[in-house]
Each structure stands twice: as C-alpha cells, then as structure tokens.
C-alpha cells in the first residue's frame, strides 16, 4: 500500500505561564508526546480518545497550523517542516481540515455559495462561471441542492452545515482531509448520513482521511485502521475489525467493553469494566506508562518504565509491557 503521510516522533508541548500557576514556576502541557504513524493513500485512519488527550493538537500540527515542538511530518516524501511559507501554501491546498464546530466555522454573513466558492476565489484563477459550476457540483456531491447556494448558514441544521463544510473543503480537490469530530454533536441518524457520505466521497474521489472522534462505535464504520490515544500518546493502532476483535491494550479493552449497548435488558445484565480513577493531567503526566494509574492489570514495571510503542503483530501496534499477556476482564 502506498503511503501518503508519515508522522515521526511528533511532540507538541505548551508552556503554561499564566497567572493561575503562581506556584512552582512554568509548567508544561504535553498535549502530544512522541507520536508516530503512517497514513495510506485512499484510506481512513480513525483517531479516538477522550476530550483533552491531544487529538486536535495532533491534527493541527500535522497541517502545520501549529509548529511541533519536535518531530517530522512527511507528505508524499516531502518534509513539511522544511517548507518555506510560499511552498507550504501550495501544499495546504492539498491538505484540508473540517472543524468540530460547524457553526463558528461558517461566516454567518456569507451565503452558502460564497462560502464554498471562497477557496476557489483565493487560490485559483477560475472564472466566475467556472466557480459557479463547481459550486453547484460540490453542493450536489454532498447531497444539497444548487438552490441552497443563496441561503445563509443559520438556515441549515447541524448535519447540513457539516455538509457545507465538507463541500468547501473539497473545492480544490484535496488529497488529504482531517475531519475533527465532524459528527459528535449530531444524532445517530445524521451521524450515519455523514459517515456514509464521507465513505462515498472517498471511493469516488480517492481522498485520504484522518477522522478524529471520541466515539469508538461510529469510528469503526468509517476507518480502515484506528489509533487509540491517551494523554498525548498512541496506545494502540490496528485495522478496525482487528482492533475490535482482538484489542491488545488494556485501555482499548476497557473502551470497547464500556460502549453502551442499545438494549435495556442487556445493558442491565452486563458487567462492563468500570475503570477506576481519573484521567491524569497532561501537566504532570504519570511516570512509566501514562495509563498505569487506571490500569487494572498494571504492576511495578508499569509505574517505573515506559513501554515501547512497537509492532506486536504485522500492522498491529501497541504500547504495553503486557500486551496480549494480561487482559482486562
């Protein structure tokens, strides 16, 4: 399989120097900590983890909307961090992002047509006529009507606004799109619409997606592979079906076991693993394995030494001293 993107040892730390931290001087948030993975052409990698674990930061660093603290991102063998601003701008056209909040990412004063046309007006020399034709084509592509072009964002529902966002994102034929929780606020029936739409677009246009979410069950249906993130690090990465069938990391195992079952009887009967404790702060992440403070099968080794993130089976990566040896029951 052909690689589109290679992320090598990316870290992003934030210095906290605000007045709230009066004690103990500057502190550092390790939002993303030494993350590596590859993204194959025409595939979707799902990135899951709870609020604050660093998913959006990782997305922004990949697109160099934020500079990484260390590490490299290669896009089709080009080292993005070495690009000059002018060259980067050309690459940006190929790499797009759909943001989590569909409300604030659409300018309320612009019509839908203007919003979708904007990237074409800025980045291309297309004529008015060509731009209009492409705008209608994009509206059709995402399941809206050309007549919607003259309407304004507030006239659309959350699901429709996400479609508008996606249409704008696709205007310049990107080869790589990051979707940052595009469906989290929508109900399941609309979530399913958007997921199906993205899958169709991928097949039709050959786009590579990084799909960020905190909901494992929906992510499965859009991703070829899934990466599970916890406190700035990737804990496990594997093919979607494999990850569900044979999760190796205790965190993944508990995530899967905690997915609510949509049946009152079964839900009352079953014994989910209720993990004890809280997600620690990324300001002072625990020593050793970052998950050890909540891990039901951790021991002294886990609290003192950090496990390597390595390929356990072909294509199945995990960071755990006891991967496949100990299981959470």
């Amino acid at each position, binding site marked *: 399989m052909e690689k589109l993107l290679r992320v090598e040892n990316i870290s992003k730390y934030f210095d906290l120097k605000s007045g709230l931290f009066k004690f103990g001087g500057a502190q550092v948030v390790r939002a993303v900590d030494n993350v590596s993975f590859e993204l194959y052409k025409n595939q979707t990698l799902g990135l899951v983890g709870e609020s604050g674990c660093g998913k959006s930061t990782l997305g922004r660093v990949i697109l160099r909307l934020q500079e990484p603290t260390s590490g490299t991102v290669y896009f089709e063998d080009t080292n993005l961090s070495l690009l000059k601003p002018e060259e980067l701008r050309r690459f940006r056209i190929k790499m797009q992002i759909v943001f989590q909040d569909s409300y604030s990412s659409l300018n309320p004063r612009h019509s839908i047509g203007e919003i979708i046309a904007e990237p074409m007006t800025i980045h291309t020399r297309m004529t008015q006529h060509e731009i209009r034709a492409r705008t209608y084509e994009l509206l059709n592509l995402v399941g809206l009507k050309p007549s919607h072009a003259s309407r304004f964002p507030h006239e659309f529902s959350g699901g429709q606004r996400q479609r508008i966002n996606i249409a704008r994102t696709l205007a310049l034929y990107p080869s790589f799109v990051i979707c940052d929780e595009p469906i989290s606020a929508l109900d399941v029936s609309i979530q399913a619409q958007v997921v199906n739409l993205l899958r169709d677009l991928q097949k039709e246009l050959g786009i590579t997606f990084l799909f960020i979410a905190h909901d494992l069950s929906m992510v499965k249906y859009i991703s070829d592979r899934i990466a599970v993130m916890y406190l700035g690090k990737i804990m496990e990465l594997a093919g979607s079906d494999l990850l569900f069938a044979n999760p190796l990391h205790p965190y993944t195992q508990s995530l899967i076991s905690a997915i609510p079952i949509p049946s009152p009887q079964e839900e*009352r009967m079953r014994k989910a693993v209720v993990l004890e404790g809280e997600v620690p702060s990324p300001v002072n992440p625990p020593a050793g394995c970052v998950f050890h403070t909540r891990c039901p099968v951790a021991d002294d080794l886990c609290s003192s030494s950090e496990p390597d993130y390595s390929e356990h089976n072909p294509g199945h990566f995990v960071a755990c001293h006891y991967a496949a040896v100990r299981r959470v029951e």
Partner: protein
Amino acid sequence: MKPLLSVRNLSTRFDTFDGSVYAVNDVSFDLKAGETLAVVGESGSGKSVTMLSLLGLLPRSTWVTGSAIFAPEGFELDLLSVSKAELNSLRGNKISIIFQDALRSLNPVMTVGEQITESLITHHQYNKNGAHKRAVELLEMVGIAQPDKRYYAYPHMFSGGMRQRAMIAIAISCTPDILIADEPTTALDVTIQAQIVELTRRLQQDLGIAVIWITHDLGVVAGLADRVMVMYGGTGVEIAPVDLLYENPGHPYTAGLLGAIPSIAGSSADRLVSIEGAPPDLFQEPRHCQFAWRCRYVFDRCWKEKPPGYIISPGQVVKCFYDGREKTPRVEE
C-alpha cells in the same frame, strides 16, 4: 400519586432579527419522584431550551407558554408563572442543573471546594466550618480521591471527568428533588461516561432524586432511564417506558434512530443505516407533523394537522397518525 413535575403544552419561541424561532412546540410530560427520564433528540431539537424554559434561564425576547406544575412535598406551584425571584430560590435548591461543559460553568479563580462551600452557605445557612466539612463529604460522595486535598484545587487542575463530578457535587449539595443533567458526558470517553452514569444512578438511589438526563446517545439511555422522551423539531414525539421504547418504538423517528445505532458486532465494511432528509426548519410555526418530510409512512393527513398524543400501550404516548403495527392510519379514540 401526583407527579413531581407535570409539564403541559410547553411552547417556547425566540424573536430574533431574522424572524421567530419556534424552538419548543407543545411539549407535555410528567416526572415522578425518584425516577430517571431521559430526553433524546438531535442537535437543535429543543432539549436544552425545554429545560431552560422551565428554569427561567432564557433571554428576554423569549415567549414561553403552557404550564409546569412542580409539586414536591408540602407545596405546589407553576414554574412558568412564578416570579423570577421565586424561581431563583428554587434553582440550586429544589431543582439543580448541570451543563455539558463543566469547565465553563465552574468559576476558574475559585477552588472547587470553595465553590461547593459557597453554595452551601448561600442556600442552606451552613456556617463556615460546617460547610467545609460537608463539602469534603460531598467530594468524597462523588468519588473524588483525597477530597480534603482536592478541596483546594482549581477547576483547571481537574480532568473533564473530575469537573463533571465536582459539578454533580455542587448540584446535589442541596439534595434537590430534581437534577437536570444536560449532556454531562458528551465530551468524555466511554470509560469516564460509564463512571458518571454509575455515580448518578447510585446517588439517585441513595438520595431519592428525580433525574432528567439529556443526551443524543441512545446507548446511554438504555442503561440509565426508567422512561424516555424523544424530541424532534421542538416536539416530544414519543414518551415511553425504556423497555417498550426499544422493543416496540411507536414513532417512525424513534424507530429510525434505533435502526441507525451502529452495532459493535458488525463489520467495518457494512454501510450504516440512516434516516434520509434533514431536520425541520424552526422558522415556520409548525402546522403539521414536523417529521412528515422524512417519514416513510407519510400520508395526506400528516400534512394537514399536527398529530395529537395517542396512547398506544400503557405509558407509551406517540404523536403520529400512522399505526405502524397494523400498517394503517390511526383512528381517534
């Protein structure tokens, strides 16, 4: 027995520069003492506005009609007709609410403990020492380790899950009759969500609090609720006991929602089932069934009138003209 809260024909309209937004349309439901009612519906379906209307927490240019009889032991009043001052004294005392975004609802420059203490002193005439002691107890009750130390932590030092626990601690500090939880777990991962659900269930049993739990996750509802209200386009389209709702959904929208839940057992190559079409436009005053545009069973009557509530099984009320089970239109009782 009289319900603790009885909401009838609640409608809420916002008047904005672009025209009126019909956010809540003719919502009626009961809440019994000690039970959990889940309110499910997509983004924009009016879940939050329904609750904010009851608590008088909406901006000025808002029109709220209907009634909401709150009848705890000892007295009875209509939440929609009492004075602002009376509502303010009920809120945080008899009725508590926790919001989706705990960080924004907590005061960033006060320690978590101080915020609980303050609530105890203003609402319950605790003295300083008593309030401090009780605050530490409450933190312990919601499962925060080392509560005596964490008392002095600021909200930003807490994780998302801990902040929600702190919010719950503040919300239950007065042992309210009703706790309204507005999507408190939406931003959290499923392991923390499971903890919060477990915690709420335990507190509810111990303290006998009635809970209204707002969410768009039907999975969470299954494990948590006694009864469920499904909202669509500002209307409560179905209310049913939780088992009935899942086994025999009465409204086509409920059935569609249940059908769209991805199965954990399925293969990633499967295509998800969705309900085609888009949610309704709330700028028009509804004159017919709001779901008609998207409904597979729609027929002429659905475009002419608003469906009333039909009781189709004990405790199951459905606003739909179509009788799904017999494949025929429903007749008026």
